């Protein structure tokens, strides 16, 4: 299933047939809705289903790889890199799944160690810190849309390889396969139609008894 096909299906169901040109809702709006719902479902899967099996890694369908991300000096001491897309919010900032030098040698495997905001300050005077290295590994903190490095790494690592837990709307063409499991397609259609008001909201039975609300 592609983003375009899914969006068209929702659009037709909403309009009850082929939509006319003067429709208030555009197909582009529906496409955005599809991607937002896909991100939501993938995040839910990571936090609930995967966790039950003791699996922390997000499904590979959820990871987008970005090469050639430039680092830049930030002030006189630190450096930073602009995130190519906003990742989904996961515990411990796991939405930023992988950061390493974008090099043609073995350093490509040298994954940076993620730190929570402010952690660097807590441990920077410990014995296992030397320069920017924590037990020999480079570190970063996520600061909004930037990755921040404790020292200036622009000369040694000008480019980064970054993997984000995100379904990036801009990266997907209309006829690219939507990176979601097949069983999520129907859920996306249902949720989008519900958001558009085409389906009645799911009934909630507030009373805890044997009788259904209806």
């Amino acid at each position, binding site marked *: 299933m592609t983003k375009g096909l899914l969006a068209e299906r929702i659009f037709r169901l909403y309009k009850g047939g082929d939509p006319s040109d003067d429709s208030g809702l555009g197909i582009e709006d529906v496409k955005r809705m599809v991607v937002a719902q896909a991100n939501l479902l993938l995040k839910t899967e990571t936090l609930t289903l995967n966790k039950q099996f*003791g*699996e*922390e*890694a997000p499904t590979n369908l959820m990871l987008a790889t970005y090469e050639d991300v430039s680092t830049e000096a930030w002030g006189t001491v630190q450096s930073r890199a602009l995130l190519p897309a906003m990742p989904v919010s996961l*515990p*411990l*900032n*796991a939405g930023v*799944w992988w950061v390493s030098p974008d090099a043609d040698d073995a350093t490509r495997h040298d*994954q940076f*160690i*993620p*730190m*929570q905001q402010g*952690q660097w300050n807590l*441990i920077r005077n*410990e*014995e*296992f*810190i*030397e*320069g920017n*290295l*924590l*037990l*020999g*590994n480079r570190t970063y903190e996520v600061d909004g849309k930037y990755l921040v490095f404790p020292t200036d790494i622009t000369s040694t690592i000008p480019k980064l390889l970054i993997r984000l837990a995100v379904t990036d709307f801009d990266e997907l063409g209309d006829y690219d396969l939507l990176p979601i499991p097949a069983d999520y397609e129907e859920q996306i259609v249902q949720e989008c139609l519900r958001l558009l008001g085409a389906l009645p909201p799911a009934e909630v039975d507030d009373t805890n008894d044997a009788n259904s609300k209806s």
Partner: protein
Amino acid sequence: MKLYKLDTIIKGELLRHGLSIHHYVKRAYLGLQFLRTVQLDSAIFIKTATLTILDNKVIIPEDYVDFVRIGIPNGQYVTRLSPDQNLYDGTSVDEDSLGDTTYWYPRINKYGENTGGYFGFQWENQSTFKVLHSEGKILLNDNVVNAATDGTILLQYITDGLASSRPDSTGAAEPSIIYVHPFAVDALRAYVDAESAKDGNRFVSRELEQKYYNELRKYRARVSGITIGMIKNSLRKRSGAFPKG
């Protein structure tokens, strides 16, 4: 000597528990805490360092806990220096200005043995030192500086095992790498597990604490190297043949 990198052990822990790299920092810190604590009482590792004298002082290594022996290399032996709390970090002593004042200093031979013979109380300049904890340096008597012809002294000290640099096979220092003795690996893992579980299920946490305690006992036994034979010998040493009274 086979040593494991703390970094490798921590990454192995993450793998074992199916955790992502995002859990690394906390566990690395716990590993460091374990090494810091355990090497104070459970296993004492002695290191030897050659230190360069500068202005009558030498800089104490960063992993120093306490000294075992300080001396001047003398062939295959070490001429031991004596601690002297009266040593003052000032200008050099002008012996002539001391006049007839008599000073008492311990007499120690080149093997660091006390030779006794404290009669006469003649002025004698001995080789002494004083650890200046606040400065992170060791202050040396002028005599030591004169005797150390190559400008270095030898320091044997108890290490906390956290010196962050160790020369690799090529002699270049590897920055920020901490090595762990193979005997300590299981205890370190058990400690990290037990401490990490404290935020969760308290029954699991208690079980892991018990496991850590057992691993620590095994670690102590491995490091001490005591055998049944040594214990028996120790008990038998005090018994001997005596005439019946």
